[in-house]
C-alpha cells in the first residue's frame, strides 16, 4: 500500500508536495550504487523557498517570485486563465490545437504511459513526476474554464481543481520536470501525448504570462534574436572564434582548414548549434575537414541568427520558434544555397527539419547532418582506417533526431563501419531514453536544478551508458566514448560524467559523430580524438 499519496487537487495547497530522497531513487550500478558516495542533493535555503515559487518538490528550475500583494496574485490568476483560454483558440494556437484537444479529451486514465517515463521511474515513482499528473491538472482546467459545464456535472465527469497562486507556481515548476521526450506518448493506446501537454503548458506561462526560465528566454531566444546567438556571440565574435579554430586545427592536422562564410549558391548552408563553437570546437572543425575532403561547396552564414541553429522556442514558445525559424529561412533564401544542413544538434534538426516545415513551404530543403555524414563516408571516395578508432564506442540517440524525425540508421551505418568496437545501448533507436537534458534542461542549472537533472532526469541515461560498456574493464584504463550527435545531449552527458566523476571512475568520454569520422580518416595523421586532452 502506498503511503506517499499526492492527489491532483493537492497542487492548489500551499507548501511542498514531496521531497527528493536519494535513497528512494532507483539504484545505479557499481561503483555508483551507494548514494552516500555520490554528490548530495542541494537543499534550498529557507529564505529562497519562502521568496520564490511554491515548489512541488523542493527543486527550483525557474524561481518565480511570490506575488507581493493580493492584487498581484489576482493579476497572475487572471493572466493564467486568459492564457489557458487562448491556448484553445485557433488564432493563437493553430500550431498545436488539434493534437492538444485530442490529448485533453480522450485520456482513459489507464496509466499505461507511466512506466515509459524515465523520470517517473528513476525517481522511485514520485507522484508529481508521473506523466499524467501535470496532464490531468491541465485537463481539469480545460474542462473548468475552456469547456465549462454545470459544476456538479464537471466534478462527476472530471473532478475539480482550484486555480490559485499555489497551483500556478507549482504547475510552472512542474512544466519543467518533463524533457518532452515523448516516450510516454509511444505507449499510450489512445494516442494521448503527455509530452505535448507539458509543451503547451509552458506556452501559457511564456506567451501569456511572460514566464520562462531565463536560460531559455532571456539568455536564449531573446539573446539570439538581438545579439545573434544564444551563446552571446555576435557575428564578429563568431567569425573570430572560427578563425581561431581554423588556425588551431590546421596546425594539428597539417593542412589548411578554412571556414567558408556567406558563399552564395553553395551546395550546403551548414548551421551549427553555436554552442559547439565555444564548447566543442573540434566538432565544427571536423565538419570543415570532412566537407572539404568530400569536395562539397559549403558555407556558414555570418548574419545575425544565421550562425546559430539553436531554437529554444521549440521548447516553450511558438512565437519565438517562428521568429528564429523565419530568420533561418530568410538567410538561406538570400544565400541561394541548395540546402540547409543542420549540424549535430537534435532540437535544431527537429525545429528546422520537421516542426518549421509547415512554415517553410519547401522553400529551402533541409536535412540532418546524419544523412550528409553517411553520404560523405560511403560515397565520396575518402579513405578511412577504422582501426584508428580502436576504443569502445556507444551511441546516444537524441530524441529529436530519432523519435521525432525517424533518422535512426545513417549514424549507425557510419559507426558500424568506422568504429569496430561500437555497441548499442539498450533500448536504442526510436525506443531510446532521453539524456535527461532534453527540452532545454541541458542549459538550465539554476538553484538546485543541476542536482535534479543529474540525479533524476539523467539517471536512466547514465545507467544505460554504464551498461553499454559492462563487458569492458570497468575502470579508467580503457577509455570509452559516448557518441552523442547533439549539442544539448552532449552538454548533459558532459555534466553527468563530471557530476558522477565517471571519467576517473569508469573512463567515460563523450563527443560527436563527426569527430570519430575524422579520427578514422587516413589523411589525418595524428589523433583527432586525443583522450589525454579531453
Amino acid at each position, binding site marked *: 500500500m*502506498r503511503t506517499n499519496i*499526492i*492527489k*491532483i487537487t493537492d497542487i492548489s495547497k500551499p507548501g511542498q508536495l514531496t521531497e527528493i530522497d536519494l535513497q528512494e531513487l532507483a539504484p545505479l550500478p557499481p561503483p555508483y550504487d551507494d548514494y552516500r558516495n555520490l554528490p548530495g542533493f542541494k537543499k534550498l535555503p529557507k529564505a529562497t523557498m519562502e521568496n520564490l515559487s511554491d515548489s512541488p518538490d523542493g527543486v527550483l528550475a525557474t524561481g518565480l517570485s511570490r506575488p507581493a500583494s493580493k492584487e498581484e496574485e489576482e493579476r497572475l490568476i487572471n493572466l493564467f486563465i*486568459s492564457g489557458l483560454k487562448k491556448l484553445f483558440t*485557433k*488564432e*493563437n494556437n*493553430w*500550431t498545436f*490545437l*488539434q*493534437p492538444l*484537444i*485530442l490529448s485533453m*479529451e*480522450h485520456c*482513459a486514465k*489507464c*496509466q499505461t504511459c507511466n*512506466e515509459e517515463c524515465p523520470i517517473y521511474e528513476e525517481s522511485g515513482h514520485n*507522484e508529481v513526476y508521473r506523466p*499524467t499528473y501535470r496532464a490531468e491538472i491541465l485537463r481539469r482546467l480545460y474542462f473548468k474554464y475552456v469547456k465549462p459545464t454545470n459544476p456538479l456535472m464537471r*466534478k*462527476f*465527469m472530471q473532478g475539480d481543481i482550484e486555480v490559485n497562486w499555489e497551483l500556478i507556481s507549482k504547475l510552472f515548476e512542474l512544466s519543467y520536470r518533463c524533457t518532452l521526450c*515523448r516516450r510516454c506518448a509511444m*505507449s*499510450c493506446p*489512445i494516442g*494521448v501525448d503527455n509530452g*505535448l501537454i507539458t509543451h503547451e503548458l509552458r506556452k501559457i506561462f*511564456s*506567451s*501569456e504570462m*511572460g514566464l*520562462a526560465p531565463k536560460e531559455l*528566454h*532571456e539568455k536564449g531566444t*531573446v539573446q539570439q534574436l538581438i545579439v545573434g546567438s544564444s551563446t552571446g556571440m555576435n557575428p564578429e565574435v563568431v567569425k573570430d572564434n572560427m578563425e581561431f579554430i581554423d588556425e588551431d586545427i590546421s596546425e594539428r592536422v597539417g593542412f589548411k582548414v578554412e571556414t567558408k562564410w556567406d558563399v552564395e549558391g553553395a551546395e550546403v548552408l551548414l548551421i551549427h548549434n553555436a554552442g559547439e563553437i565555444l564548447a566543442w570546437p573540434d566538432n565544427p572543425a571536423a565538419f570543415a575537414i570532412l566537407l572539404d575532403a568530400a569536395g562539397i561547396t559549403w558555407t556558414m552564414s555570418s548574419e545575425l541568427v544565421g550562425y546559430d541553429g539553436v531554437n529554444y522556442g521549440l521548447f516553450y514558445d511558438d*512565437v519565438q520558434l*517562428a*521568429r528564429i525559424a523565419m530568420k533561418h529561412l530568410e538567410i538561406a533564401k538570400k544565400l541561394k544555397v541548395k540546402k540547409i544542413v543542420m549540424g549535430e544538434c537534435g532540437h535544431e534538426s527537429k525545429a528546422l527539419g*520537421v*516542426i518549421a516545415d*509547415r*512554415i517553410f*513551404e*519547401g522553400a529551402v530543403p533541409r*536535412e540532418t547532418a546524419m544523412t550528409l555524414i*553517411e*553520404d560523405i563516408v560511403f560515397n565520396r571516395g575518402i579513405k578511412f582506417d577504422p582501426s584508428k578508432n580502436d576504443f569502445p564506442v556507444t551511441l546516444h540517440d537524441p530524441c529529436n533526431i530519432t*523519435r*521525432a524525425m*525517424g*533518422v*535512426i*540508421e*545513417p549514424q549507425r551505418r557510419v559507426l558500424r563501419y568506422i568504429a569496430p568496437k561500437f555497441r548499442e545501448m539498450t533500448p536504442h533507436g*526510436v525506443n531510446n531514453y532521453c539524456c535527461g537534458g532534453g527540452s532545454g534542461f541541458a542549459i538550465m542549472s539554476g538553484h538546485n536544478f543541476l542536482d535534479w537533472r543529474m540525479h533524476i532526469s539523467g539517471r536512466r541515461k547514465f545507467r544505460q551508458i554504464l551498461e553499454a560498456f559492462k563487458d569492458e574493464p570497468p575502470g579508467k584504463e580503457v577509455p570509452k566514448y559516448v557518441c552523442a550527435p547533439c549539442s544539448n545531449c552532449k552538454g548533459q552527458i558532459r555534466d553527468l560524467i563530471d557530476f558522477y566523476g565517471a571519467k576517473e571512475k569508469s573512463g567515460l568520454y563523450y563527443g560527436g559523430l563527426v569527430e570519430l569520422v575524422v579520427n578514422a580518416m587516413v589523411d589525418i595523421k595524428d589523433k583527432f580524438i586525443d583522450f589525454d586532452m579531453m
Partner: protein
Amino acid sequence: MILLILTYIAVIVFLYFNIRYGYKIASAPVHLRWELYPVPHEKGRAQYGGSILEEVDWWTKPREKDKIAELKVMIPEILFLKAIWEHNRPLWLGSFAFHWGLYILIGNMFLLILSTILGFFGFSINAEQGLIASIIFYLIKWLPIIGSVIGIIGGIRLFMQRIVDTDLRLYSSASHYFNIILITLIYITALLWAVTDKNFVNNSISFYSALFTFGNISSLPLVAYIHIYTTLFFMIYLPFTHMTHFFSKYFTYHKVKWEDEPNLPKSKIAQKVSEYLNYPVTWAAPHIGSDGRKNWIAIASTFPGKENQNEN
C-alpha cells in the same frame, strides 16, 4: 411507442454529437508536424522507426507509403489492445474482456439489423429455416450470452482494479466508476434477457423490425426493457465522455502520430498555413508584441526591442 421514440432520439443524439465532435476535430487547423516514429507507412523502414529523412537529399526521392502497414498496426491495436498488452499487462485482461464484450454485442446488433432486413424480403430467421437462417439464429442466441459473460468479467475486473490500485484510483473521477457500472449493467441485462427469454431471438428481431417500420413492439420481458433503456442512455451519454476515443483514435494516430506530410510549394497544406498566418495573435506577454490585430506574419517577422524584455 415511447420506447421507439426514445430509441430514435438516442440514435440521433449519438450520431449528431459524435459527428459534430468528429467534424470539429477534422476541421481543426493543420498543426505543425508532430509525428512520432515509428510511423508504420514508411516503407521498408517502419520496423526500426526510420523515415525518408534518412535519405540524403530526401526531397528528390520518391516517397513510398505503405498503407497496408498502417492496418497491420491498427488492427491488432483495435482487436487485441496491443499497447496495453505491451505496456500495462495487469490491465490488459480486464480491458480486453470489457472491450470484446462490446465488440460482440455490437456485432450482434448488426446481425439483428441484417435479420430484420432479410425478414422484409420474407427470409425469416429461425432454427428450422435452413442452414444460413439457423446459423444466424444461433449466433443471435449465443453471441449476447458469450459477449455479456466476457464483458461482465472485464467489467468486474476493471472496477476492482480501479478501486484497489492506487495509481488508477487517484486518477479516477466518479464517472469512471459510473461508466464501468453502466456498461456492465448493459452486459448483465443482456445476459439475463438472453438466458431467461425463450423467444429472445424473435423478440430482439421484432424490436428492430418495429424500429424500421415504426410498428408495434411486441411485449418484452422486464429485463429486456431495462437492457434497452440502459443501452439508450449509454448512447446518449457516450458522446460527452472520453469514450469517443473509439473513433477519435483515428485522428490521434493518422492525423498526429503518423502525419508526416511535407509541406511542398503550392500544396494544400501550404495554402492552409498561409491562411493561418493571417490569424491575429493576441498572446499578452510583452515579448510577443501583440496589439490584438497583428497577425502571425507581422509578429514573427519583428521582435520587440530590449525594453520589452523585462519579464519574470
